[in-house]
């Protein structure tokens, strides 16, 4: 017997569920990787400017620093007030260096958790926006508890008593992404990726050469389409054919529509139900054999 996310699902059922979203696209997983990293691809800041109003940035982890690789604060989307938190890649070299290319350190994850608890105090839903090559793999990050900070976020997000929507807009790089990614809904742009390891990293371990990254990308199932099929994500937000960078207004409109719909759907659930459903959602993830 094969368990698909906790329940037996026939392949037919699976295919039907996908039909509404699936577009016949003739691009490879590696093409998607390249689009997800396109230098002109809209970043968190672009969505902040186009979708959100009245952003009040809040700084600091109250213990060590203010990591610019993750930013967050109060914001409004339509008439809905939220806490929005996201990886902050930067649009040019200066910004990218200041923001460490969206690779957060422990103080970044700890700030994110602080803001989620603040959202709980203010009774606001949380939107997390994911776009990172991964958590920063540096000495000081390791020293100050990169692992601890991600582990704590993943654990405590399970108990945050307001709705959480996670949106993958570009690169969903491993633990660095999941560290703000434990949402009640996981949405993903159609050319975003979400992976346990970078295709290059995987290729250099399992193929002994990073140049096999395209093979690794395919094998890892990192595209929105693949992840929807695997029941990891809840919704794919369609990009323009060439990718989100081709039409900032269009993709922003699509993202906004999706966020508002999902906020609405989550708004009438009691805290008890919300946390039960969140638990069940993650408890159901994975495929394994029994006997």
């Amino acid at each position, binding site marked *: 017997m*094969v368990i698909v996310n906790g329940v037996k699902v026939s392949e037919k059922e699976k295919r039907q569920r996908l039909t509404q979203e699936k577009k016949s696209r003739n691009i490879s997983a590696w093409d998607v990787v390249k689009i997800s990293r396109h230098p002109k691809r809209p970043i968190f800041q672009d969505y902040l400017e186009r979708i959100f109003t009245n952003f009040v940035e809040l700084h600091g982890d109250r213990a060590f620093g203010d990591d610019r690789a993750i930013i967050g604060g109060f914001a409004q989307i339509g008439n809905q007030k939220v806490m929005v938190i996201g990886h902050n890649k930067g649009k040019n070299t200066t910004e990218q260096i200041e923001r460490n290319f969206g690779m957060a350190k422990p103080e970044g994850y700890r700030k994110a958790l602080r803001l989620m608890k603040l959202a709980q105090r203010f009774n606001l839903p949380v939107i997390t926006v994911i776009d990172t090559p991964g*958590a*920063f*793999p*540096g*000495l000081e*990050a*390791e*020293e*100050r*508890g*990169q*692992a*601890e900070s*991600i*582990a*704590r976020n*993943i*654990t*405590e997000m*399970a*108990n945050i008593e307001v709705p959480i929507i996670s949106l993958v807009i570009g690169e969903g790089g*491993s*633990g660095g992404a*999941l*560290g703000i*990614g*434990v949402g009640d809904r996981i949405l993903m742009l159609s050319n975003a990726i*979400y*992976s*346990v*390891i970078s295709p290059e*990293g*995987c290729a250099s*371990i*399992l*193929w*002994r050469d990073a140049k*096999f990254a395209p*093979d*690794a990308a395919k*094998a*890892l*199932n*990192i595209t929105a389409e*693949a*992840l929807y099929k*695997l029941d*990891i994500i809840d919704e794919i937000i369609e990009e323009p054919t060439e990718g989100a960078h081709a039409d900032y207004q269009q993709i922003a409109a699509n993202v906004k529509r999706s966020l508002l719909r999902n906020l609405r759907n989550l708004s009438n659930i009691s805290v008890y139900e919300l946390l039960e459903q*969140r*638990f069940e959602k*993650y*408890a159901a*993830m*994975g*495929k*394994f*054999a*029994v*006997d």
Partner: protein
Amino acid sequence: MSWYTKAIEEKKPQKKTLWIKCRGCGAHIWASEWKQNLSVCPECNYHCSMTAQERINLLFDKDSFHELFENISPVDSLNFNDLKGSYKDKIEANKKKSGILESVVTGHGKIKGFSVVTAIMDFRFLGGSLGSGTGEKILQAANFAYDYGLPYIIFSASGGARMQEGVLSLMQMAKTCAGVARLNKKNIPFISVLLNPTTGGVTASYAMMGDLNISEPGAVIGFAGRRVIEQTIGEKLPDDFQTAEYLLEHGFIDAIVQRKEMRDYLANVLSYYNR
């Protein structure tokens, strides 16, 4: 996230081996002495890895351990093939090699009379990597601890998330931590024992979330791989980087316990649970 998976592969003594070469100091130790000393080098105190079964024998009261969820095993749901073949074949080979069906053994038992629920990772099975089956067993055991109000102890030894299951393996971090979160809410102690090596996605999830984090001397514990970090910062890292001793100094480990004292130590800690 599995930079270590290949890096460390402990050679276990074969039946016929007369002596063991210590990986810590290179000394040659008689196999019988090595075994008697719990796979710890009598010369340099290097703590060599143990199988899950060896650890059960070491820590649990005789005949008290009952395995749970033993019928869970991995599936190659992505049809993952790399240069060296299919994940499917690897699963079968690892089952055969280790005699267990997943990288973790779960169950309940008693340590000097104190009932606990436990999950014990076995590094022999796919480098102790965190796959869907591993995550399922660790969560089920957490739920068992939750239902019965028993302390939960996880012994980690892992190269991290299991790449061959793609994001499914990444999500096991959230899945297992959801179990820990429920224990936290109900004030049920969770003790994490981080063994050599505990790295990547396992360190960045349940292994680091113990109410107590305990380790053995010299255990390597880290998130990013040493080589990756050296590439990032462009310099060589200190020798003790990512050892249990280093993590204790930096505030992430409560105590480093010698293997031969682990049973007494855990029983002592458990004696403080007052519900």
